[in-house]
């Protein structure tokens, strides 16, 4: 709901934007067709509902895009299921039949009899407008699609009257007799229903009834709304596009069903056509369908077929001398009948007409009308061309209708000549020229001037149109750019015959931020009608300005070059801790040897002193424990050596604790043996 509301808002915004311009409508083109592929062809090949499927397939059919082979399988399954099941709602049956009409899933003699009886019962028992609509239109579709059925409505006139009873005096219709709410959308549905009743009726329906409907239609046209650019539409709670489309559908089917003809005001029909063409390319599937369906109804109807005048290009180039082309076609882009196009007036921006009543020539190959000769006084600028279409009324079968006058904004462009361009430095009060240079603005000149703050700079040139009139451009700027990238822009004003700019440096000193130095001079002249707009670097001027006082504002910081900010930075060289100077390896090894020497001397001294191990116990038990004890001590010393060489503290401590416990036991045994031995000696 949110999306639809948003889409409606956007559409109305678009329409408001259009209504202020004298815009040209374009008929449906290939851009519509490619957009339709995006909007209507689902990604997975299946549609969410039969209503959506019908809208998509009908739009693709009108636009001439053949996608039936891709889409038919899944949708046809759905259609067959709905038509086969006895419990389907009237709405589903209606849409299933509509889709079937396009895809032709079931056709020929295979008449779904229960569907027919359901629709007939629905028509008889209906009380609501929608029920009437679905059942009657469903029966019409069955009659079209399946041959060999003899469908007639039992009591056509009674049904006609009961539908008619829902109408209101202002032309709108109610959805049901209980609910007082009425809408124009419902009017469209009612017209379609009544058309169906008329076509299915076994005998003629009373003409007076039909006449009342026709008066009702004309009453409905009183509620037609209008935009400033000449488009008409019907508004309602469903939105302008849906409501207007519904009314147009109803009117075309009503006009087609009955024989006496329907007279509708032609300009309003053209206005309705322009409304739909002015929508552009809708993004919403429902709006797209309504637009295309309404235009298809307008293309081929019994009252009047609108013709649209469009221009592929609204710019006339006086230098290229190409003709102005005009196309006339129906709303869907099909060929128009033989007619003549006349340029009634070409109004320039002052309001006077420079071309009057010029017939356009017709080129049969491209089916366009063109104007190739322009009068001598056709100058550059903006014009409004007023076209009229002359129809040959008698030769046509259908009644065609066009706008009385189509107003088109046209821009004429040409080459503007630049003359007497010169730049000068003037002395201030006296006004005498110190240095003056002629400029050739087509080349980048190497003009080099110098000035101080007491002087003035004067730039002047003349612009003339191809016809020799004075031309005032939209844009004429002079830019002074300092070496430090600070820029200043000044406007060159046109007065009288020439464009002139005088820069008084005395007054501009503060604006220039007191920056002395070399300034680049750049001149820009541009306009929509000017084909040779230019940007030229005239040259340089050396400005000598006084020193900046303290209070004066600083020039603004210029943005740094992004590449320097985000470019690679200087390489970082890391400084590591210089490793300590170690002594030479040989020296360390010599001292290792020297350390060992005292140990050897100690051992030699011990043997010299007569150290012995005589009191080593001899008995087996004591000997083993003593051996183990000494062995354990030796193991601990070995562990220390290993710790020094490669083990870490934790493994060492673990091993040490184990060895320690072992040594405790063994040592205790050895000592107790020794104590026992010495006690024995003492006692002995």
């Amino acid at each position, binding site marked *: 709901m949110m999306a639809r509301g948003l889409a409606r808002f956007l559409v109305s915004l678009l329409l408001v934007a259009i209504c202020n311009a004298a815009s040209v409508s374009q008929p449906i083109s290939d851009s519509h067709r490619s957009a339709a592929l995006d909007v209507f062809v689902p990604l997975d090949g299946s549609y969410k509902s039969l209503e959506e499927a019908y809208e998509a397939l009908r739009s693709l059919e009108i636009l001439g895009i053949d996608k039936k082979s891709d889409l038919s399988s899944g949708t046809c399954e759905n259609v067959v299921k709905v038509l086969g099941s006895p419990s389907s709602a009237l709405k589903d049956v209606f849409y299933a039949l509509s889709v079937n009409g396009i895809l032709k899933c079931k056709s020929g003699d295979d008449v779904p009899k229960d569907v027919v009886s359901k629709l007939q019962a629905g028509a008889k028992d209906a009380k609501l407008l929608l029920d009437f609509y679905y059942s009657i239109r469903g029966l019409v579709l069955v009659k079209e699609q399946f041959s060999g059925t003899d469908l007639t409505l039992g009591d056509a006139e009674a049904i006609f009257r009961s539908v008619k009873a829902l109408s209101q005096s202002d032309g709108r219709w109610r959805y049901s007799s209980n609910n007082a709410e009425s809408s124009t959308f419902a009017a469209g549905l009612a017209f379609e229903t009544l058309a169906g009743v008329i076509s299915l009726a076994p005998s003629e329906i009373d003409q007076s009834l039909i006449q009342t409907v026709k008066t009702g239609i004309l009453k409905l046209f009183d509620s037609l709304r209008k935009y400033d650019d000449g488009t008409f539409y019907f508004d309602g709670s469903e939105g302008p596009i849906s409501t207007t489309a519904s009314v147009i559908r109803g009117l075309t089917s009503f006009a087609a069903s009955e024989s006496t003809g329907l007279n509708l005001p032609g300009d309003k029909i053209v206005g309705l056509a322009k409304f739909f063409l002015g929508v552009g390319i809708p993004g919403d599937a429902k709006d797209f369908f309504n637009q295309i369906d309404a235009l298809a109804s307008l293309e081929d109807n019994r009252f009047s077929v609108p013709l649209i005048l469009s221009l592929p290009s609204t710019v006339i180039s006086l230098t290229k001398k190409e003709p102005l082309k005009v196309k006339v076609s129906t709303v869907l882009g099909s060929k128009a009948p033989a007619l003549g196009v006349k340029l009634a007036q070409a109004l320039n921006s002052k309001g006077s007409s420079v071309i009057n009543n010029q017939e356009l020539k017709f080129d049969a190959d491209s089916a366009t009308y063109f104007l190739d000769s322009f009068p001598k006084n056709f100058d550059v600028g903006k014009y409004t061309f007023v076209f009229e279409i002359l129809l040959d009324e008698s030769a046509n079968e259908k009644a065609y209708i066009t706008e009385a006058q189509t107003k088109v904004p046209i821009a004429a462009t040409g080459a503007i000549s630049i003359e007497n361009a010169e730049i000068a430095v003037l002395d201030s009060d006296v006004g005498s020229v110190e240095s003056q240079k002629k400029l050739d603005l087509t080349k980048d000149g190497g003009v080099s001037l110098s000035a101080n703050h007491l002087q003035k700079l004067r730039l002047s040139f003349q612009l003339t149109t191809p016809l020799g009139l004075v031309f005032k451009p939209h844009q004429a700027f002079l830019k002074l750019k300092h070496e430090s990238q600070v820029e200043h822009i000044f406007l060159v004003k046109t007065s009288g015959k020439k464009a002139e700019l005088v820069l008084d440096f005395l007054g501009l000193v503060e604006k220039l931020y007191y920056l002395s130095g070399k300034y680049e001079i750049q001149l820009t002249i541009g306009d929509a009608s000017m084909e040779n707009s230019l940007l030229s670097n005239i040259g340089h001027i050396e400005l000598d300005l006084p020193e900046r006082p303290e209070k004066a504002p600083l020039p603004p910081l210029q943005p740094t070059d992004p590449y320097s900010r985000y470019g690679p930075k200087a390489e970082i060289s890391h400084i590591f801790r210089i490793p300590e100077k170690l002594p030479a390896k040989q020296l360390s090894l010599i001292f290792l040897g020297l350390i060992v020497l005292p*140990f050897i001397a100690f051992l030699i001294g011990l043997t010299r002193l007569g150290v012995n191990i005589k009191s080593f116990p001899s008995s087996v038990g004591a000997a083993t424990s003593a051996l183990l004890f000494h062995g354990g001590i030796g193991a601990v010393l070995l562990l220390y050596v290993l710790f020094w060489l490669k083990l870490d503290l934790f493994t060492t401590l673990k091993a040490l604790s184990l060895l320690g416990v072992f040594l405790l036991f063994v040592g205790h045994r050895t000592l107790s043996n020794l104590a026992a031995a010495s006690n024995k000696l003492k006692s002995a």
Partner: protein
Amino acid sequence: MVKSTSKDAQDLFRSLHSAYSATPTNLKIIDLYVVFAVFTALIQVAYMALVGSFPFNSFLSGVLSCVGTAVLAVCLRIQVNKENKEFKHKTVVTNLRGIVAMFVIAV
């Protein structure tokens, strides 16, 4: 006078040597151990003087362990010496085994 001083030195040295030989073997072993430890410490100090004190930790641990064990051995010698009468009442344990056990634990 030089001759007499050198003769005095020789006499002094000879008397010391003879007195020293009278000490019991135990004490001589302990003395030898002390000399060995001190020499090891001196060699380490000489190495440090040569190559600088990096790494200082190693130098300290080496020297101080040697000096420490020398000091403990000297304490043992004092306590074990039978002729050292004034020390008798100062020991925690009076018998030889206890003294040796204390030494071992200290080391």
